[in-house]
C-alpha cells in the first residue's frame, strides 16, 4: 500500500505558542508511517467562533483559500486543533452542500485566482490516528507505557460536535478519544465535567478572559472532586493553552493554585512511543515557562536524567 500522506495544517496556536505539539505530531505520524506534508502559505483557519461570528462569508472564503492549497496537491488535510478542524471541516462541508455560499465564496476567491472545488477531506489528528493508523498499530508502537499514571481527558468540543454533522462519536458519551488515549497504557479517570467546554472558544477568551477561566476552574474542581489525576490530555492546542497557561491566569485572577500537567494527545503518544520529552520540548509549555517550573516527571512515570 502506498504511504498515506496528509497536508499538515498548523494553524496559529500550535506553531506560534505550542510548537512542541507540531514536533510531537511529526514524530508520531512518522513512527506510524504516515507522511505529513508542509502546507505552504496556509493562514489562520480562520478561528470559527471568532470569524464565523463576525462575517460568515469572509470566514468561509478564508477557510476555502486554505482548502484550495490542499486541493491543488491532491491530498487530504490533517490538523491537531479542534478550532482549525471546525473551520476547515465545517467550511468544506458547507461549501459542498450550500451552492449559494459556494458561489459567493468562489466569486471572492476569483480575486486571488483560486477556486474551491470540493475535492478533498479534512481530518483531525484523532481521526487520522484512529482510522488510518488504527489502535492496534498504535499499541504495537508503545514502548513506554504509562502504567499506573492517572489520566483525565478533556476532549473539547469541535472535533465531535455538532454530532449530527460530524457523525463520528456520541458527544454525550464519546469513546474514540478515550480509546486512543488509553493505548498509552495510562489509567482513565472519569470526572463529572469532562465534557464541558474549556471556556476559551467562541471569542469568549478574547472578550472576557475571567469568564473563560471560570469554565476551566469548574473543570479542575470537578476533577479534584473525583480524586484528581496525574495529567490531563486534550486533542486541541487552544484547550491546551486554556488549561495550561490558564492555571497561571487563574492564580492571578482567583488566587487559587492548580498544578496539572496538560498534554496534547500527540505529546502523550510521542512519550508512549519512547521519545524523550526533550525531543519535542514538553517542558516548553507556557505554564512551565511562566512559572519557571517543570512537568511533574515522577507522576508522569518519566525518569529525569534518563534523557
Amino acid at each position, binding site marked *: 500500500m502506498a504511504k498515506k500522506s496528509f497536508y499538515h495544517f498548523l494553524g496559529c496556536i500550535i506553531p506560534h505558542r505550542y510548537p512542541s505539539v507540531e514536533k510531537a505530531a511529526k514524530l508520531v505520524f512518522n513512527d506510524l508511517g504516515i507522511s505529513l506534508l508542509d502546507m505552504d502559505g496556509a493562514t489562520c483557519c480562520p478561528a470559527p467562533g471568532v470569524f464565523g461570528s463576525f462575517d460568515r462569508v469572509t470566514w468561509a472564503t478564508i477557510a476555502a483559500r486554505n482548502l484550495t492549497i490542499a486541493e491543488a496537491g491532491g491530498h487530504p488535510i490533517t490538523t491537531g486543533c479542534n478550532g482549525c478542524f471546525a473551520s476547515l471541516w465545517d467550511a468544506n462541508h458547507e461549501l459542498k452542500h450550500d451552492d449559494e455560499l459556494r458561489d459567493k465564496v468562489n466569486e471572492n476567491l476569483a480575486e486571488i485566482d483560486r477556486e474551491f472545488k470540493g475535492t478533498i477531506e479534512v481530518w483531525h489528528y484523532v481521526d487520522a490516528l484512529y482510522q488510518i493508523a488504527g489502535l492496534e498499530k498504535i499499541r504495537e508502537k508503545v514502548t513506554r507505557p504509562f502504567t499506573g499514571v492517572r489520566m483525565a481527558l478533556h476532549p473539547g468540543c469541535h472535533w465531535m460536535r*455538532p454530532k449530527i454533522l460530524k457523525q463520528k462519536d456520541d458527544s454525550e458519551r464519546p469513546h474514540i478519544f478515550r480509546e486512543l488515549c488509553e493505548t498509552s497504557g495510562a489509567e482513565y479517570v472519569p470526572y463529572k465535567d469532562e465534557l464541558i467546554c474549556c471556556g476559551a472558544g467562541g471569542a469568549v477568551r478574547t472578550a472576557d478572559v475571567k*469568564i473563560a477561566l471560570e469554565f476551566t476552574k469548574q473543570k479542575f474542581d470537578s476533577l479534584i472532586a473525583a480524586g484528581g489525576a496525574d495529567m490531563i490530555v486534550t486533542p486541541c492546542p487552544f484547550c491546551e493553552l486554556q488549561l495550561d497557561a490558564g492555571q497561571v491566569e487563574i492564580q492571578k485572577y482567583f488566587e487559587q493554585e492548580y498544578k496539572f500537567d496538560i498534554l496534547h494527545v500527540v505529546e502523550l503518544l510521542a512519550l508512549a512511543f519512547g521519545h524523550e520529552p526533550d525531543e519535542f520540548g514538553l517542558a516548553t509549555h507556557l505554564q512551565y515557562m511562566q512559572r519557571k517550573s517543570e512537568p511533574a516527571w515522577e507522576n508522569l512515570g518519566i525518569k529525569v536524567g534518563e534523557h
Partner: protein
Amino acid sequence: MDLRLKINGSSSRCVILTSVDEKPAIEIDVPDDSFVQLIKKTGGPNIQNCFQCGTCSGSCPAGARTNYLVRGIIRKALLGLKQQCISATELWYCTTCYTCTDRCPQDVKPTDVIKAIRNVAVAEGYMLVPHQKTAQKVLEAGHAVPLDKESWQDLREKVGVERVPPNASRYAEAIEEIKKIAKKTGFDKLVEDKAEK
C-alpha cells in the same frame, strides 16, 4: 457606542440578573419578522423551529455563570426585538461549544442562530474592541495568534522545528491574498478602527 464602553470598563460582567424596575408588557400583535428572515439567511435557518423548551439554556455552560440566556435571545429574535438582541453584551459569552445544538429537540441549532445574530450585530457596528483587534491581526499577519516576537521563534528552535513555520508567517504573498479577500468582502472596512462616536 454603548456596548464598547461597557466592555472596555472594568465591570464588563453584568452581575445583576433581575431588576426591580417595572417591566412593560411586550404587546406585539404582528411581530416584525424581518430580523428573523435576516437570521435565517445569515446562518440560522431553523430559528422558527423553536418551541421554547429551554433545553439549550439548561445545557449551557455560559448561561450557568453569566446573564447570557440562549433561549431568551431566540425568543426575543422571534418577537422581532432586533435591537435588544444585537446590542446585548452577553451575546458574546457563548463559547460555541454546541452542547445546546446536540440536545435541542427541535433542531434549531441554537449555536448557529447565535452566530448569525452576531453577524448581524457586527454588520451594524456592535463589535467588541478586543475582537476587532484579533480580526485586524489576521489581516496584518495572516494569523489571529501571530509569530510576533523573537521569543516565539526561539521557542520553536528549542523544540527542534524551523524558526519560522511554512504558513503565512513565512509567505508574505499569503497575507496579500487575505487582504484582497477582506477588501472584496468589505471585511477590512468592518473591522477597521473607527472614530469614537
